[in-house]
């Protein structure tokens, strides 16, 4: 029930972080920058659980549960210091609305870093990173670190321009960037999988895939990888209550039998381990 990815490297912490910045990035998207004391750093693909509302509102019980958010970018804190860690979040409901409304100077509780990481890109291969919607946030660190060792292609897609996140940051990296929107408002019109199919047809070293986004998108990437016998890692975005393996709420069926906990064995899985059929 486990996968072959490296285990989470750092012990998670529970701390109050200070909001340094919370900027609007297109309609409904926010860039939240937190100062996190003692932050041990995160590996690409890891996430934190953020409690909606400032910690001064500790009595808040509605909405109740913390929200999983990928660590977008940030380094470990210097000894005894605080680290600046960025998150890109999309307002999709009440919890993310409260997170988007946090003002600089407010403090917020978090638990992390949590979960498994992407296995690093393999030097000499063509790494193709496919991000859809909020899944884009899980890929930045991987793209940034991978660019030193391999040929990295990034395909970022969303319904419309306003649903894209972090595009400028990716374009500033030494990577080959492709943007798709379903309505054609930015980049090419269509889906990420159209761009992926085209890239895979172009001549070049053998490809490996990394995908994070809506379940149908990851399932489509998994199918392409299976057909073309490519390695493919996916990062799942299941609903979570705890994020550290105790509520058993985030289970996903796996081919090795039974269920795997997305918050602990995942969120990153080899795509062929996940039983995609029937996933909500």
């Amino acid at each position, binding site marked *: 029930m486990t996968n072959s990815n490296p285990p989470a490297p750092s*012990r*998670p*912490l*529970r701390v109050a972080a200070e909001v340094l910045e919370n900027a609007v990035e297109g309609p409904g998207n926010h860039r939240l920058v937190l100062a996190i004391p003692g932050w041990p750093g995160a590996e690409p693909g890891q996430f934190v659980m953020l*409690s909606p509302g400032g910690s001064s509102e500790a*009595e808040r*019980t*509605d*909405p*109740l*549960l*913390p929200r999983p958010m990928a660590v977008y970018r940030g380094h470990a804190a210097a000894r005894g210091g605080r680290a600046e860690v960025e998150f890109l979040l999309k307002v999709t409901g009440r919890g993310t609305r409260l997170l988007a409304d946090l003002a600089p100077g407010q403090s917020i*509780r978090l*638990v992390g870093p949590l979960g498994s990481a992407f296995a690093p890109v393999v030097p000499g291969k063509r790494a193709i990173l496919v991000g859809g919607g909020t899944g884009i946030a899980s890929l930045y660190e991987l793209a940034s670190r991978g660019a030193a060792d391999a040929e990295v292609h990034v395909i970022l897609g969303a319904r419309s321009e306003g649903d894209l996140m972090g595009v400028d940051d990716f374009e500033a990296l030494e990577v080959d960037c492709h943007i798709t929107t379903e309505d054609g408002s930015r980049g090419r019109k269509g889906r990420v999988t159209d761009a992926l199919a085209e890239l895979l047809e172009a001549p070049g070293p053998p490809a490996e895939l990394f995908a994070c986004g809506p379940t149908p998108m990851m399932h489509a990437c998994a199918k392409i990888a299976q057909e073309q016998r490519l390695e493919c890692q996916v990062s799942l975005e*299941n*609903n*979570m*209550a*705890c*994020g*550290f*393996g*105790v*509520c*058993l*709420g*985030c*289970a*996903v*069926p796996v081919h090795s039998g*039974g*269920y795997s906990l997305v918050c602990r064995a995942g969120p990153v899985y080899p795509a062929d381990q996940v039983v995609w059929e*029937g*996933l*909500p």
Partner: protein
Amino acid sequence: MTESVDTRVDLGGIALRNPVLTASGTFGYGTEFAPFMDLAALGGFVAKSLTLEPRSGNPPPRIAETPSGMLNAISIENIGVEAFLNERLPELPGDVVVIASCFGTDPGNYAELAERLSESPRVAGIEINASCPHVKSGGIEFGQDPRLLGELVERVRGVTSKPLLVKLSPNVTRIDDMARVCEASGADGICLINAVQAMEVDVESRRPVLSNVLGGLSGPAIRPIALRMVWQAAQAVSIPICGVGGIFTPEDAVKFMLCGATAVQVGTANYLNPAVGREVAEGIAAYAARHGFPRVADLTGALRLPGAP
């Protein structure tokens, strides 16, 4: 001042350094919380309910958020009693008080499980889960029928000399009858409440939010119901009571003690704050000190009813 308060309580023969346990199904097998706190800061913890064989749970979605609460339909997914005894228990520091929770489909397999668990000196007590709200057979059937409950408790009592607790379901008409049956059948204490049977629907898709359709409601939303039931049970029996349901703060815990609980269990709150158990324990001691109680045990039943001084 807090240091001078005696925080120890006795829960049906289980000596606890303070009255705060963490609830079954919300604290894993304990070690998951080691990064966040010293487990010995708790009175103890109740491990995830065990079955004789490892057991897989329901398909997703298994959880959903509701107003000030959450629904779950996990269905007693667990590693099985042997893996618990051989792999997980030895990982825990010796000073951590561990209570094992048993789940079965008939009194026979509950008893077999309790017998096996009783062989371990690391198991401080046994909690019978007679109340899981969303498993197809077992659990709640026992918690809803006084005759079946009596048989179950007697059967398990017959095979263990460990302190025996029974975890009761709120999905009954008369909780006092259930409490009396437990006392009469040899239980050393009762724990209540388990999650409240509940349901939620997504109107856009017209589907229940859980794959299991029904689930168990937990969290602050159920706290006043739990408090009422602890109060009623405390009127009915003289064995100690452990209060469970929506406890998030020290004040919440104190309310349960005032209504007659000897100890409490913190459940859903662990998901939001993995160190909440320690914070609640410290806060209870501070409350006792502030109100002039030399022992936290003196809070039990100290409710001032209308008309009383």
